[in-house]
């Protein structure tokens, strides 16, 4: 069926587990669905032969950090940082080889009308949070994420 709507950025929505609204609001995101490509070309082939690997999901979120009204939490190890998005998924229990991978459900909707029509959902780990603050008025945080728990990201797209 032919498509009839162009997606514009304002159509989207983003949620990060249950912690998004507490610690950052997302202004923009970039996401890449990819698979590793392995070269299996052999003698006798007259062209390249390649196989694709498992699906990965990587990208970044750019947003504004939020300050809550509760008591401050000082995170200096994986236990005390459990409730901080900026700490938990970066340095949390996932760094221990024997522990459960500590991921957050990241839902990136390119079109949001209350139903799933164009979205990517992935259980991600955040590999970095980069904070920027400018005395003249702007503050931002950029988070880098990667698919984290062995499950493939789920793509939903209306056709």
């Amino acid at each position: 069926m032919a498509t009839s709507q162009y997606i514009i950025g304002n159509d989207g929505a983003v949620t990060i587990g249950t912690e998004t609204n507490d610690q950052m609001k997302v202004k923009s995101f970039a996401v890449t669905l990819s698979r590793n490509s392995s070269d299996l070309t052999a003698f006798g082939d007259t062209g390249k032969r390649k196989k694709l690997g498992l699906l990965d999901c990587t990208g970044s979120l750019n947003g504004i950090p939020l300050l809550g009204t509760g008591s401050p939490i000082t995170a200096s190890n994986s236990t005390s940082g459990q409730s901080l998005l900026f700490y938990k998924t970066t340095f949390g229990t996932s760094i221990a080889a024997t522990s459960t991978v500590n991921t957050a459900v990241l839902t990136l909707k390119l079109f949001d009308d209350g139903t799933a029509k164009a979205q990517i959902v992935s259980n991600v780990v955040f590999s970095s949070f980069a904070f920027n603050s400018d005395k003249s008025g702007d503050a931002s945080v950029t988070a880098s994420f990667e698919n984290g728990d062995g499950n493939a990201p789920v793509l939903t797209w209306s056709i």
Partner: protein
Amino acid sequence: MSVQNVMIALANRFKGSTLETALGGRIYADSGPADAAIPLLIWTLESVAVSKIFGGAQKFDMNFSFAFYESGDQTTIHTRSSQLETLLATKLSATGFDRVTFVRTNSGVPSFSDDGWTMTDKYKAVGYKG
């Protein structure tokens, strides 16, 4: 209405302030009355840029100018400028906004004409809604 709330909050910030007293209450938005006595201050909201955030929040970048008119020496007009800076150093509470922060982006230099000094300071105000 939303930006208007910032303007109302700013006008309220002036009320009873040292600056307002020093200017004899002559602080006006956009334009003053004809033949108004000086000293006076006219402030203007010059531009508002709105950027949207996923989840419905919005960021407002507002640029204000504050034009001082002073009949005394040019030192006085700098004093008024400092009083304004002090007045805007603390966050502004505007209905519908998280809070509004003012940052001076341009400090004017006094200019003399028509038997009086004028100087214009510019501020950037940032506020979030939603």
